[in-house]
């Protein structure tokens, strides 16, 4: 048990890639939490996919002991958070567990969209914020200008912002001192009944479900029997530990402390993030407010390329879901693709991460169908339905009107690209809400339909601004619009996995773009293949894939038969990545790539 005034809890927040995880490394290293020989870059990013993509996906916490200049040793609990907007939920719930935030800003980039989003969340959570200017080792770093920008754009005092290089370690001692002196100690009553917040939970192959908690009041001890207020489940603790970042057993955790326990919990789904944990015997009076669960906003179908792999896919999805409660799935059947799953994700990056893991960790080739948002269908009979899959769109005569989710998007961009950004937002049916400048950077706020953003908006934004724009969004609500279902016919047969919901005014353009893309993506066959986009029975765009005219090996003599056979084997393997529709073979990647628009 540690005295409250010797504890500091904080999250590290920043725009993507501004150096949160690298700063966490230095804090861990300088305090000797991890032996020098065990250090590695971004050591908290433990998942393969995090290491490969160089990004943080899951928030991670570490307990550090810091002997400060005042002669006292402090316990610091840091939570490194992800920067990408899809995982904003991880940031917001992490913040509920701590009292302060280190706001990292890359001094060579300045304030970006997620910098803003994170600051607002930190302010919402009543955090003390310590701004940190990172990467000052870079020649392009402009710490003074960025300080000014923080004050202008965010409106917080940045005079005491700490210049550092998380890479070289410069300025890290100042950060440690600031944590101790500028962030508040937690509050709490040791003698009150136990009240702890369930911050996160994950599945560990050896330990089962591990639960991360922050104790507010009271004391939790090994072997206690606890009760989860929302789920009403009771468990006897098996293990109580702190993360350094490996688990180190501890006898008890008191107010202000952060740690983990295990208790023979089977599934991550049996725990509710934000739930209140108390003792079975002596329960706390009022539960914590809890958090809204993360809602999947993007849905798509995942089908095995080889339909014989359906069972393997189901096993893989169930296993992944054990550890990722923000991802939902249900079985789906498609006329074109057979059996698969309709899955819901927090965003497109989340979708990609899950798909990558399924393909690599479980070795299943997948067809991913067009991502869709959740529409609200208001039926003539007064009923309201959710539509997750355009293929399930009921007969139009039964539908009174359709609503789609809208977002508030914040884009920060150097002013020379502003025109491109405004054009992109207008093209995507956006309504401008705000436009302000901070130096030569513009901040644009748009109300946009999520369905125009979900798929390739971010890629397009990056490409029209040469990577200089940043983007953040929140869902704001639902609004009615003139939405229709567009079908795609390949060789005169509808391919349900390619149908999507579009705004009527954009349908011709989307239809043309899709037909053109499919024409590039589907290889020539021995016969010509018409490709059509249609609304209802009406064709709105068409293309034709010309018949293959020439594909023959010129020379084939005695030794060549072996070579030719190898080539055929290769083609056979390539064909495994295709799916047969009637007489036409469609490559696995076509389903998703057909949606990419060049404009």
């Amino acid at each position, binding site marked *: 048990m540690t005295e409250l005034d010797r504890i500091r809890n904080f999250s590290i927040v920043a725009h993507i890639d501004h150096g949160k995880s690298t700063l966490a490394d230095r804090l861990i290293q300088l305090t000797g939490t991890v032996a020098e020989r065990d250090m590695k870059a971004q050591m908290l990013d433990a998942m393969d996919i995090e290491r490969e993509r160089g990004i943080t996906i899951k928030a991670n916490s570490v307990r550090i002991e810091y002997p400060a200049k005042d002669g006292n040793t402090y316990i610091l609990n840091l939570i490194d958070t992800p920067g990408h907007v899809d995982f904003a939920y991880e940031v917001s719930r992490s913040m509920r567990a701590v009292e302060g935030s280190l706001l990292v800003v890359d001094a060579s980039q300045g304030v970006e969209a997620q910098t803003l989003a994170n600051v607002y969340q930190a302010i919402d959570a009543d955090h003390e914020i310590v701004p940190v200017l990172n990467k000052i080792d870079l020649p392009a770093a402009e710490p003074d200008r960025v300080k000014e920008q923080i004050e202008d754009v965010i409106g917080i005092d940045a005079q005491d912002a700490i210049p550092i290089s998380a890479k070289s370690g410069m300025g890290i001692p100042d950060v440690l001192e600031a944590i101790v002196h500028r962030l508040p100690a937690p509050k709490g009553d040791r003698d009150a009944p136990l009240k702890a917040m369930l911050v996160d939970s994950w599945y560990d192959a050896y330990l089962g479900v591990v639960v991360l908690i922050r104790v507010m009041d009271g004391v939790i001890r090994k072997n206690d029997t606890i009760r989860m207020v929302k789920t009403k489940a009771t468990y006897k603790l098996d293990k109580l530990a702190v993360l350094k970042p490996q688990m180190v057993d501890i006898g008890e955790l008191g107010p202000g402390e952060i740690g983990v326990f295990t208790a023979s919990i089977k599934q991550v789904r049996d725990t509710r993030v934000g739930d209140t944990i108390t003792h079975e015997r002596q329960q706390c009076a009022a539960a914590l407010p809890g958090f809204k669960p993360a809602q999947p906003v993007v849905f798509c179908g995942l089908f095995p390329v080889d339909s014989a792999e359906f069972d393997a896919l189901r096993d893989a999805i169930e296993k992944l879901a054990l550890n990722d409660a923000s991802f939902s799935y249900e079985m789906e059947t498609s006329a074109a693709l057979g059996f698969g799953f309709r899955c819901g994700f927090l965003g497109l990056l989340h979708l990609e991460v899950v798909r990558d893991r399924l393909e690599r960790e479980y070795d299943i080739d997948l067809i991913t169908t067009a991502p869709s948002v959740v529409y609200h269908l208001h039926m003539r009979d007064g009923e309201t339905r959710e539509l997750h899959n355009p293929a399930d769109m009921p007969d139009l005569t039964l539908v009174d009107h359709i609503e789609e989710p809208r977002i508030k998007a914040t884009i920060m961009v150097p002013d020379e690209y502003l025109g491109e950004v405004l054009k992109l937002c207008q093209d995507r049916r956006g309504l401008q809400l705000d436009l302000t400048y901070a130096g030569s950077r513009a901040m644009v706020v748009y109300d946009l339909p999520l369905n125009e953003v979900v798929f390739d908006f971010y890629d397009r934004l990056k490409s029209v601004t040469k990577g200089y724009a940043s983007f953040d969004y929140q869902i704001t609500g639902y609004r009615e619009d003139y939405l229709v279902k567009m079908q795609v016919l390949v060789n005169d047969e509808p391919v349900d996995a390619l149908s999507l919901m579009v705004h009527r005014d954009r349908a011709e353009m989307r239809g043309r773009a899709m037909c053109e893309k499919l024409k590039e993506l589907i290889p*020539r*066959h*021995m*016969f010509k293949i018409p490709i059509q986009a249609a609304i209802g029975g009406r064709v709105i765009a068409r293309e034709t894939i010309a018949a*293959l*005219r*020439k*594909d*023959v*090996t*010129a*020379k*084939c*003599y*005695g*030794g060549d*038969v*072996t070579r*030719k*056979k190898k080539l*055929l084997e290769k*083609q*056979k393997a390539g*064909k495994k990545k295709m799916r047969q529709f009637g*007489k036409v073979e469609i490559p696995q990647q076509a389903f998703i790539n057909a949606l990419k628009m060049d404009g």
Partner: protein
Amino acid sequence: MEDRRHDWRNGGFGLYIHWPFCAAKCPYCDFNSHVVSQIDESRWLRAYLSEIDRLGAETQGRILNTVFFGGGTPSLMSPDLVDAILTRVRATWPMANDPEITLEANPTSVEAGRFRGYRDAGVNRLSMGAQALNDEDLRRLGRLHSVAEARAAFDIARTAFSRVSFDLIYARQHQTLDQWRRELTEALSMAVDHLSLYQLTIEDGTAFGARAATGGLLGLPQDDLSADMYAVTQELTEAAGMPGYEISNHAAPGSESRHNLVYWRYGDYAGIGPGAHGRLTLNGRRLATDTPRAPGAWLSQVEETGNGEAPRHEIALEEQADEYLMMCIRLAEGLDMDRYASLSGKSLSSDAITGLEQIGMVRRDGSRLIATAEGRMVLNAVIRELMGA
């Protein structure tokens, strides 16, 4: 249905001898050919003779129908070397009454000077690599001879051999349909009774391959033009009485390359020399033979172990069926579906055949399956369909 598995007998029996050296490497060529400064012909002769002896012992009594000296550039061999090899061949196998003995030649003046010597050694058919009938294109193709030299060599060849063929490579960089039409017409006016007309293929591991990979090698015809060129080729050769009997080979009826027909009809052939492949039926098992590609490696293996081959492997029946299909469907006569079925143990998919018939890619003639003119242009796709790939 009678058992047609053993039809390799009807395919005849041929001997392929690979000579792996060239005066210079052509930028498009991925044959097993090498440029060296010195060749010890006597060492090579001993190795060839030793291999002939070894294979002869295994195939004793088989009647040899054809011999083919291929390369590389066999016209760099001295006539004495060719003579010594053929003498041993004749002493080893009983020869068919009218054996076909072909040698590949490059048409430079030096080589033309040896043509009569080859004839005296027993070669009775010459296959000449003319490649193009205009000097600029010959230079682009990295050839060491001019059109004039090729014509001169060709004239010598015609007096020395009753059967002469030459090769052209078309669908070259910047070549138009009309240019090819004129060039082919000219070639047909020179031709004796056989022509090999290959569309330029960009092969990995060649100089052209590397240039194409980095975006060089501009002006190659795309699908449609190359298809038109192929169609014109079929049309003109047919009109000249030398129809295509195989994808890239044209002959007056009866003048087809019998050696190459052994390959396409999936008969038996022995392969000698670096990188030479063979298909041999021994004791009722069909074997694939193969040798090291590097000339030095092959030579020393023969010298040290008395056997130039890599370990042989038996070709399973279904694999034989696939090989038969891939080779024989290249011929204008088509393949024998009964033979295919006895090899593979099952018939070709009738759905696949019907589908291909409906789109005009194949036709049936009794038990034969024949690729149509359209089908031949996309034969790889036809084969994939038939093999269910």
